[in-house]
């Protein structure tokens, strides 16, 4: 199977004047196409840093990170924007939809930045909002939707660019448990359809939906099932 993520000897060190914090210490792992991986760890373990690096929104201090064959470490800001746009679908804990903007416009946004024509954007966004069961909520603004609905909009948004990787950061952290089950079911279904999913969480119940769990503690991976 083809590698979507190939991380070798990744370290991330935060330096302040007096203090040097090692957030990630020589981490190497691989995630293949079609996997559903959960990254687990307590707060302060370095899992957020790992998530930032995997999401191409932060760069490692040392080591190389290949995302779908591209070396993320060598890219500048605009190239990083581009690679995030094309290859990564983000689902955030706080949903991060544009406030007071309709579900449809939120879902269309990544395609707008990719320069896709408006008609095509509309068509694709509508298709994915139907997929997450929100075809009757398309013109609701984000603050008119429940937490679960907002996260489904975010999932639709993560899919429109047909990314190589869906990166979910505590996707159920801010929603009620019945809706959390619904969201997890959606991830499972997406994974069955062939999407590669990496999910960060600290809840074992949620992590067990994944096929593989990577544990992070003190900046190191100490167990990879």
């Amino acid at each position, binding site marked *: 199977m083809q590698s979507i993520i190939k991380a070798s000897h990744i370290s991330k060190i935060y330096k302040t004047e007096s203090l040097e914090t090692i957030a990630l210490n020589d981490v190497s792992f691989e995630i293949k196409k079609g996997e559903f991986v959960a990254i687990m760890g307590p707060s302060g373990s370095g899992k957020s840093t790992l998530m930032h690096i995997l999401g191409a*929104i*932060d760069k490692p201090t040392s080591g190389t990170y290949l995302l779908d064959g591209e070396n993320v470490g060598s890219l500048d*800001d605009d190239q990083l*924007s581009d690679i*995030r746009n*094309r290859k990564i679908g983000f689902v*955030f804990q706080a949903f*991060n939809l544009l*406030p007071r903007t309709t579900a449809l416009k939120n879902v269309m946004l990544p395609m707008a930045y990719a320069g896709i024509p408006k008609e095509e954007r509309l068509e694709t966004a509508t298709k994915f909002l139907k997929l997450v069961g929100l075809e009757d909520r398309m013109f609701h603004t984000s603050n008119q939707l429940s937490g679960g609905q907002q996260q489904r909009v975010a999932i639709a948004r993560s899919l429109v660019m047909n990314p190589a990787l869906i990166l979910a950061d505590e996707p159920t952290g801010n929603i009620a448990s019945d809706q959390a089950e619904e969201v997890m079911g959606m991830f499972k279904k997406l994974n069955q359809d062939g999407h590669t999913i990496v999910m960060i969480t600290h809840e074992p119940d949620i992590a067990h939906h994944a096929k593989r769990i990577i544990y992070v503690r003190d900046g190191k991976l100490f167990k990879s099932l």
Partner: protein
Amino acid sequence: MSYLELFVESFATLALNKVRTGLAILGIVIGIGSVIALVSLGQATQQSIENQIQSLGANLLTINPGAQRSGNVRTASSSNTLTNEDAAAIASSSEITTIKSVSPEYSSRSQVVTGSSNTNTSIIGVVPAYLDIHKVTIDSGSFISQSDVDSLSRVAVVGPQIVADLFSGSNPIGQVIKIGSQNFTIIGVTVSKGGSGFNNQDDVIYVPLSTAQKILFGASHLTSIAMEANSSDIMTAAQDEVGYFLLSRHKITDPSKADFSIFSQQDILNTASSTTGTFTTLLSGVAAISLLVGGIGIMNIMLVTVTERTREIGLRKALGAKKRIITIQFLLESIILTFTGGVIGVLLGILASYIISVVSGSLFVISFSSIFLAFAVSTIIGIIFGWYPARRASNLQPIEALRYE
């Protein structure tokens, strides 16, 4: 993402926060509005001064007597150097080709009495040519005629201010007034020309030149000679021609020692124009400062907006927005703010200058160049003061969007 889409999005964002948007715009509205209003006020003032000076008579040249100088020492008493003969010579000489008509004048002040009313006013001894040269119009009755001048008639033509002061506005024609110790019969009233203070052209009494010189003031000289040039294009030539003619008549070889001076209406006009021009520039400068303060206000609001929307900007970048797109989005927001402020400011400025013109009875002048400039300036202010916040927004890292709160 097209510019139109970015524009629509920026507009929608601004529309969400109406109070803040309104306050940000207000600074620009006041700045642009005051520039428009003050420039318009300045131009109206300038135009009304020009109109008033023009009403004194176009193509007008005036000769005033001046002391003959020898080095720095005055050698003759100051004001007796112009004579009736000088005026007659200018009018009849074949050397003078640029002058259409000549009006010798003797003016002084005197006490004027009628019944129980009296006033101190300007008495001008004139010949009939005065009427045309100074654009004086007769309201009722008639002006001083040549036979009045020839026969030293004791007749007077009065300005409307005199009618108001001495006759309480009733018809004065045929009435007798006492100028100094002499009785004069009023034969005409002039139309009001405006002016105020010492320059009040309505507070004046015209009498025949000969009567003024011989009967009223006992003088043989003139206080001024007014002349009308053939056209306004040849004022300088006419000034030179008359100047050299008089120099040779007065047997003066050095022009710097001339015992008279000639100035044209254009000279006065130029002086007045430059004065009001300075005035307008000064006012515009003050208004420009308020515009600058408005621009800083926009920058302040935009910086606050960028800080407030850190998460949104981070999210946009996480989803693939490049620096350029973010810069344009925020720049458009600030340009929309300043341009809208500019439009409202122009409208309010026009309204304000209209109200000023109605209240003060002055002219209503709006120059399209200042309106165009206002739009250009407000847009440029948007770009200048929006640039720094927009750059700051575009340099934000997407990691901000993922920070837990």
